[in-house]
């Protein structure tokens, strides 16, 4: 695999399907940071993200023969990872929600971050964990990871309009959870239900579910 760097993703996958024992590992090493970011933001927990990513990559490793070249290899890999995450989240949704622990592991301290982006990232992770998983997956791909809506639609296998709608609904749910944390004085006076602040004295995130 000395020429791996110049080999396309599709060629690597084809070599893997044809029996090259190294091709899939090369393919994974190319994309695993991005796949990890998607899994981590979607799961909100590094241990669960690692489990989901491992399940997904093993599944992709087995299923590569079924890849038909209709989508880019990266799209297909993302799809397998997101689906593994959603499966886990849906199973977990059947159990009572527990507060997410702090994960220094996922957010190494950054002394050059005077604006508190690290705290913001943690708050966003917490807030994301409280919105429906389908909306979360769309927001992670589009708003957090910055994929074009069309790419997210291909990954999630849903229409572009549905991606936009899920993102919009997810952002709306995040407003009352996130905005007061960033700038309490400028918090909007209207909640997601259109009622005034006096009508919603209980601001705990769990109460919004």
């Amino acid at each position: 695999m000395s020429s791996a760097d110049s080999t396309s993703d599709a060629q690597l996958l084809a070599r893997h399907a044809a029996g090259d024992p190294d091709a899939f590992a090369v393919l994974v090493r190319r994309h695993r940071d991005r796949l990890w970011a998607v899994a981590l933001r979607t799961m909100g927990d590094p241990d669960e993200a690692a489990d989901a990513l491992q399940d997904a990559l093993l599944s992709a490793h087995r299923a590569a023969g079924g890849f038909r070249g209709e989508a880019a290899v990266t799209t297909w890999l993302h799809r397998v990872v997101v689906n593994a995450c959603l499966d886990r989240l849906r199973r977990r949704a059947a159990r009572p929600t527990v507060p997410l622990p702090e994960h220094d592991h996922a957010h190494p301290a950054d002394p050059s971050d005077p604006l508190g982006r690290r705290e913001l990232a943690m708050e966003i992770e917490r807030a994301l964990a409280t919105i429906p998983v389908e909306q979360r997956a769309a927001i992670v791909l589009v708003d957090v990871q910055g994929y074009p809506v069309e790419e997210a639609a291909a990954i999630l296998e849903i229409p572009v309009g549905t991606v936009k709608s899920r993102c919009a609904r997810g952002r709306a749910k995040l407003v009352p959870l996130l905005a007061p944390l960033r700038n309490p004085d400028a918090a909007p006076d209207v909640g997601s239900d259109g009622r005034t602040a006096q009508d919603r004295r209980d601001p705990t995130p769990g109460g919004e579910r």
Partner: protein
Amino acid sequence: MTQHHDPVHPDSPHLSVELVADLEAGLLDDESAAHAQHHLDHCPPCTEILDALEQVSAGLAAVPAVALPPDVAHRLDEALADATGPATLAAPVSDTVVPLDAHRRRAGWSTRVVTAAASVAGILLLSAVGISLLSNGSGSDGTAAGADSAEGAGAEDGTTTLALDRYVTARSGRSYDEKRLVEQVDTLLVSSQTADTPSASSTPEATSGPSADPMVTARVNGSPTVFPAALVDPLVLRACVVDYLLRPDAAPLAADLGTYEGQPAAILVMPKLDDTDKAEVFVVDPDCSGPDATLLLYLVVTVPAELQP
């Protein structure tokens, strides 16, 4: 502008966060969007909702990038190293077919060179037999379909080979491309499977053997081009199938020489080991020269219903 109540929340004088989010995402129809925008322009509390949504978007975009932690990377590497290969190759159809992937994975890709050399030697020993078979025309079996594995059983060292007359390369010179490949492969399969004899008009030189002019005419990058293609030789095609595709168990359902995305290429269609309704399509170098041949594309297609066993 309290006279414009949000239709979703008739009790509230303000727009809902959802409505503002939909507006921002461009999801409202023209009339609703105009109404909501008009309200926003005149309602400071609702403008705050818009500001908050923008803050949320900015916050989401500002989430720092993360790299895969080394411990997780290590764990993934180990899990993948322990994994068996893709189902297409890891699921032998009978116990007598060597589980190629298992020994290959341990030994690594480089051992394929050794295997290739060994089996090419074996094929050369068989070549006289093969050529005499060729002179008798094709075998009686015009449907070289998925039942080949039984004949390949016992391929312990890759040197067991099916009769050479099963390795027929057409040279249509067709311009294959990714967008139309599935239908082009269907066409190829139908024409190959309905060509009962090697003298069928669609592939007049298909089984002419190694002594024939191994040239193929195709349009390469738009210009008529003649290129040499060793794969016309059934021995080379069989070596490619056995040593490169690692399929001593089956002959191609179809093989053709032409171009793929403007480059000279061979299209090899193999029966899928674990699913007789499916076929694997390999687009490779026109010469398929050994284990390092370039594989341009791989995909699995459904065999046209009329050709399924």
